[in-house]
């Protein structure tokens, strides 16, 4: 029971979500990793002789309207999408956890004020919020990342605050307080490890939302700039050719779906971890 390797094997066997999530995510990560060192073609190399081709042996995902190899671009674009998702979730989690932990733990006036601000932020859909931030700070994938990150803070702050409210008066916290544990140590060393399960699954859900939000925002024309494109940007570039060259839309679309599915299954798998 205390052997982590055994527990892992048992979970893999009894928990199909975990297995499926790990396989899909591993495939995507493999594709991204390989893409760092090698792509079949230069993702920015245009070729007027091979525009808008369908799937073939030469171009396994076809080519785009400038004759660039879609698979190479998907390999590159997935990396950008993943980086944006990681950055977004990192900002959201770190800032959100800090705010949620402090407000939930201390309560009182500061909690009231911060939570009202968070509520106000929360009233906007996060995409809209990110759109506002991007329109103020300009487009580009760094701006997109920061904007989405800020937009993600409220949901993490809420989750973490709820958990801290639940934990702060528990006997084990008061017991530790009696021994002279400081507030900071209490928050990070004593309470935080108890909410890591909740955090882990909300981080994975966050990945999904970030991938989708990135796709949505890129679709609206903010975010990564040509010639490199995230998956969302590729999707939006491809839409005019939806009927003439369906592979151009479908391939990045399917990769987005797989990414989201992989994270979702992983999240579900972790929340069912026994």
């Amino acid at each position, binding site marked *: 029971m*205390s052997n982590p390797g055994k527990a892992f094997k048992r979970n893999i066997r009894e928990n199909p979500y975990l297995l499926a999530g790990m396989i899909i995510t591993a495939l995507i990560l493999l594709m991204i990793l390989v893409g760092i060192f090698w792509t079949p073609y230069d993702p920015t190399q245009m070729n007027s002789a091979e525009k808008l081709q369908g799937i073939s042996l030469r171009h396994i995902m076809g080519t785009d309207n400038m004759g660039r190899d879609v698979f190479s671009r998907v390999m590159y674009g997935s990396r950008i999408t993943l980086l944006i998702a990681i950055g977004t979730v990192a900002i959201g989690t770190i800032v959100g956890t800090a705010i949620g932990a402090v407000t939930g733990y201390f309560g009182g006036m500061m909690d009231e004020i911060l939570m009202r601000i968070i509520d106000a932020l929360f009233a906007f859909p996060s995409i809209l919020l990110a759109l506002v931030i991007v329109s103020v700070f300009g487009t580009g994938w760094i701006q997109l990342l920061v904007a989405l990150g800020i937009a993600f803070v409220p949901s993490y702050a809420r989750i973490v605050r709820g958990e801290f409210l639940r934990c702060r008066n528990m006997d084990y916290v008061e017991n530790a307080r*009696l021994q*002279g544990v*400081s507030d900071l140590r209490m928050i990070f060393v004593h309470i935080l490890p108890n909410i890591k399960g909740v955090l882990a699954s909300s981080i994975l859900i966050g990945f999904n939302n970030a991938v989708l939000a990135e796709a949505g925002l890129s679709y609206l024309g903010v975010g990564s700039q040509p010639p490199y494109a995230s998956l969302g940007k590729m999707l939006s570039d491809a839409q005019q050719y939806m009927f003439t060259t369906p592979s151009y839309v479908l391939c990045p679309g399917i990769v987005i779906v797989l990414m989201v599915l992989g994270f979702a299954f992983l999240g579900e798998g972790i929340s069912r971890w026994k």
Partner: protein
Amino acid sequence: MNENTVLEVENLNVFYKNNKSSLFSQNKKIQALFDVSLSMEEGEVLAIAGESGSGKSTLARTIVGINRDYTGRITKKYENDTPQMVFQDPYSSLNPAKKIGWLLKEPLRVDRNKKWTATEMDIRVKEIMEEIELPMSMLERSPAQLSGGQRQRICIGIALMRSPKLLIADEPVSALDVTIQAQILELLENLHKKHGISIIFISHDLRVVYKISDHVMIMKDGRVVEYGKTRDVYLNPQHEYTSQLLKAAGIIQE
């Protein structure tokens, strides 16, 4: 304060926030203790008994400093000594995310009076594990892998790590079954005999109180109804409520 007194409480009134109070109502606070006074000698076992909701835990929590909203005076002989507490429910008073060994060392890591080296900590943990009669192999376990009685031993161990002068045990056995209760009580008695530590023992069980305590305080609705030497109180209860309790426990006849 007398030289031999470890703890003196004078005219203590304790308040809780009234969560049900509306914006305009007068009662922002509920008073849980009314004018409680007590005085404890060094090495004494003071029992606090009374029905559920009478304020026993509130008194304990105010003495150790968890409840801060009070009027009156609490004087402790040892300034640098935080009284430690063993909680009622061993299932909730150990951090589920930590290993037993880690939990035992935590009071030493945060000790403001002394910087403990790793070796000193290990030695101290070993001493305490012997005192609470648990094998060293349990240090690697997490609280969920221990029985209720074992957890309560660990809680007692954690409380003893820095050798406090005053230990408060808030119904330490009421969540355990009868045979385990006896073992834990015996452990507490042995520790008391060996180290001469002063103990406030909170209990429902008047038979246990008689066996273990020098003085007893009977509480009802946040007030002290009777306070004195345990023998005197049991032989000659002054208050109707005390007699009722003793009768209900089958200690004196109708």
